[in-house]
């Protein structure tokens, strides 16, 4: 392709209608406490992965609900499953099992 000296930016908009929500449905079935999340960010504030990378469990839950699966897949690999977030979460979201469920659901739906 000729180089025109500029590139086309990627569309950042969430196109909710086109995004599949199958991954979220699979995860929510495995770990229904995900519905309790109030997006408070307590988990991300205590998370070592979030301190050094752009990873945030709070955001990952939202991305999952919106069907932004690609970003969920890159995000989830950052988690070290230390479980600190679970101690911090005020809503009793079973965060560790949630993250494991995301990993397993990704495998099952073979998003790799």
């Amino acid at each position, binding site marked *: 392709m000729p180089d025109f000296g500029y590139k086309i930016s990627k569309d*950042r*908009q*969430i*196109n*909710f*209608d086109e995004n599949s929500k199958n991954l979220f449905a699979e995860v*929510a079935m495995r770990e*229904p406490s995900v*519905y*309790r*999340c*109030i*997006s408070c960010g307590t988990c991300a504030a205590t998370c070592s992965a979030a301190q050094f990378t752009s990873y945030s469990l*709070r*955001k990952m839950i*939202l*991305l999952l*609900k*919106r069907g*932004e699966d690609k970003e969920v897949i890159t995000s989830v690999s950052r988690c070290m499953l230390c479980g600190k977030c679970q101690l911090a979460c005020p809503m009793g979201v079973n965060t560790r099992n949630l993250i494991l469920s995301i990993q397993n659901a990704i495998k099952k739906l073979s998003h790799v």
Partner: protein
Amino acid sequence: MSKKVLIIGAGVAGLEASGVLSKLGYNVTIVEESDRIGGKLNRWSHLFPSRRPASEVLEHLQLNLDPNTVIITNSKITDIAVKDTSIEASLNTGKHIDADAVLISTGFELFDAKKKEEYGYQIYENVITSADLEKIFKEGKELTTSKGKAPKRIGIIHCVGSRDEKVGNTYCSKVCCVTGVKQAIEIKEHLSSCEVFNFYMDLRMYDRHFEDLYQEAQVKHHVQFIRGRLSEAFENPDGTVMVKVEDTLLGKPMKMNLDLVVLLVGMTAGNNSLFKKQLRLETGTDKFLVPADEHFKSVSSKQKGVFFAGACTGPKTIENTITEARAAALEIAGYLKN
């Protein structure tokens, strides 16, 4: 002879105050401009947070009315003045009323959603208000799109006509967040497979049981809450409405199609210009009436013998309106004893 109190407005505030004042031995006359008593209660189906039928609350208020209370409906006050220790009022029907104290309980008006033209109320087929939705529930009608189909995806829009400098209302209407959560649950109870989204800036779940409703909406009904104010809405050829918001918790713009949009209209001040002028009452920048002291005279005006109760002094719930109406009745009794 027992002293007389004139109550202007037969909504929750006027009716509750009337019941208490009668019990305390005063003669009450209520002037109501519409053809029925009850105010907005007549328009709501089930109330937050308990989901009690609005009709039950109205019945209770009616039962508490003294049989000797004079209720004048379909009437407007045309003149009112404080003369020494009495109040004199004239009605458009030619009637004159004199009283020893007056309670203003004229309530609020719903924000006119047409003013927020970009949301398409009465322009797009599938945009309704929270008040329209209450009417559908109250009449036991089925919730459908304009084409008579069961909606598969409904968006509930918070802060319509509130927290909005452009329409002139910078304040929060206080009751719409919880109304939106209640209505989301009610929609899910009617149409369990319908997806429901609440688009909000802040979820103001301040009162007792409100937060429980929010959790119920999420955990039991899987209602989705998206933080972002509705930015654009436009109608597709098939009548669905495309909305654009920023999902501010993700920092990303987002678009989706909705089969039906519900606008949570806020509360605006009623027309109190006659009372303001003739009784020299103050209104705030929000146009609601201003009490004499925000802490200690919250149900009194600065004018001798003139009292306030309910939503005429700002957005509030029915529970708070009832509490205020009782406080006003006691304040009036204290005033009339001296």
